[in-house]
């Protein structure tokens, strides 16, 4: 399991891997937003937390496709299935995905917030929201990726299946960020967000492993 974690991290950090690109995509969306909605500080400030969350969500989503599909195509997945319990494999891979996407996006969010005129007191809540919310994104996504393993280049189908599942996470996450930006108290949504992530981390590997087994059959 540790071996798999290390290998996935290495793959992600290599050229063509998900890591740097995920970040860059995040950056890109944030940069494009002002072009799309026009530069007015007021307008930007109001949407900043939301956009930052949406961008993080999409960046995570885009890196998800490779989670299992690549391994399935080149036969690694069946080798993994024979070498270790799939639940463990899913957990390791999802964890690697989180470390290379969510964890970093969380660190990257506040500085980028400046570009979108996010008020300073909003930076910390945004960081917490991203940090505690992104595990849910990775582990829910792992389930979606497992469902779409049978479909080659199933990236779009994946997003179609996963985005509705992301709704609660997004709502709580954006709520925390928004309240934070407005200087309100954000304990309640943050707690809910953390609980949600915890639940996903605990439950999703089993669902995903079941889906993978069906897919290998």
């Amino acid at each position: 399991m540790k071996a798999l974690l290390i290998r996935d991290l290495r793959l992600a950090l290599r050229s063509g891997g998900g890591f740097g690109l995920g970040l860059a995509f995040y950056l890109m969306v944030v940069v494009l937003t002002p072009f799309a909605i026009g530069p007015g500080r007021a307008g930007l400030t109001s949407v900043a937390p939301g956009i930052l969350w949406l961008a993080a969500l999409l960046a995570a989503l885009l890196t998800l496709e490779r989670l299992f599909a690549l391994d399935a195509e080149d036969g690694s997945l069946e080798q993994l299935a024979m070498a270790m319990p799939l639940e463990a494999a899913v957990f390791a891979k999802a964890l690697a995905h989180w470390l290379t996407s969510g964890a970093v996006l969380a660190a990257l969010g506040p500085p980028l917030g400046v570009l979108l005129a996010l008020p300073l007191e909003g930076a910390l809540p945004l960081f917490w929201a991203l940090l505690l919310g992104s595990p849910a994104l990775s582990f829910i996504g792992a389930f979606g990726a497992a469902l779409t393993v049978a479909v080659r280049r199933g990236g779009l189908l994946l997003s179609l299946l996963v985005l509705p599942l992301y709704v609660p996470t997004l709502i709580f996450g954006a709520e925390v960020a928004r309240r934070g930006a407005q200087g309100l108290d954000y304990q309640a949504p943050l707690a809910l967000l953390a609980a949600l992530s915890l639940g996903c981390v605990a439950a999703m590997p089993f669902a995903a492993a079941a889906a993978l087994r069906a897919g290998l059959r």
Partner: protein
Amino acid sequence: MARGGRRLLSGVSLAVTRGTALSLHGRNGLGKTSLLRVLAGLLDPAEGRLIHDPEKTAYAGHGDAIKASLTVAEMLGFWADLYGAASIEPALLAFDLDAIAGRRGEALSAGQRRRCALARLALVNRPIWLLDEPTAALDQAGQAELCALLSGHLNAGGSALLVTHGAPPIDCPRLDLEAFRATPGEEAGAFAEALE
């Protein structure tokens, strides 16, 4: 045993005794790969069951499990960790990969990929080997190395099932699966069965 609702082979019963190998033959599309996957526990048999425990098998199929961005050494190292092997030396020796140990997966030739995939067998220690067309893309030297690896495994009391179209890498009894070919028209799978 069936695939996509098409029943392929029926009545196959294999027993490989320790220390021996068996080579399977049959037309393209007969169901050899599917059979191996069933034995490896990757496919469910339409009916019948496995006596052995899939945990005991090592499977080398059409898929090479080569990562474009990892070097040969890194890939072998990963599998070694996973199977708890001490070092990747045996694998490198088995198919003298030292020369290309530092080369990335994307830069491997067909035969080099196959060698890399087969070298994994030297790291797993599981009694039953299931090899699907292992000699494809291997040159003479490679086939000799495979033969050596195999006989070493057999002498150590392991056993192996080989699927080949040409001559098997080591001389061993051959079994032609044509005999077990299911008569067309039988279907399998939950949906098909339901149609009685």
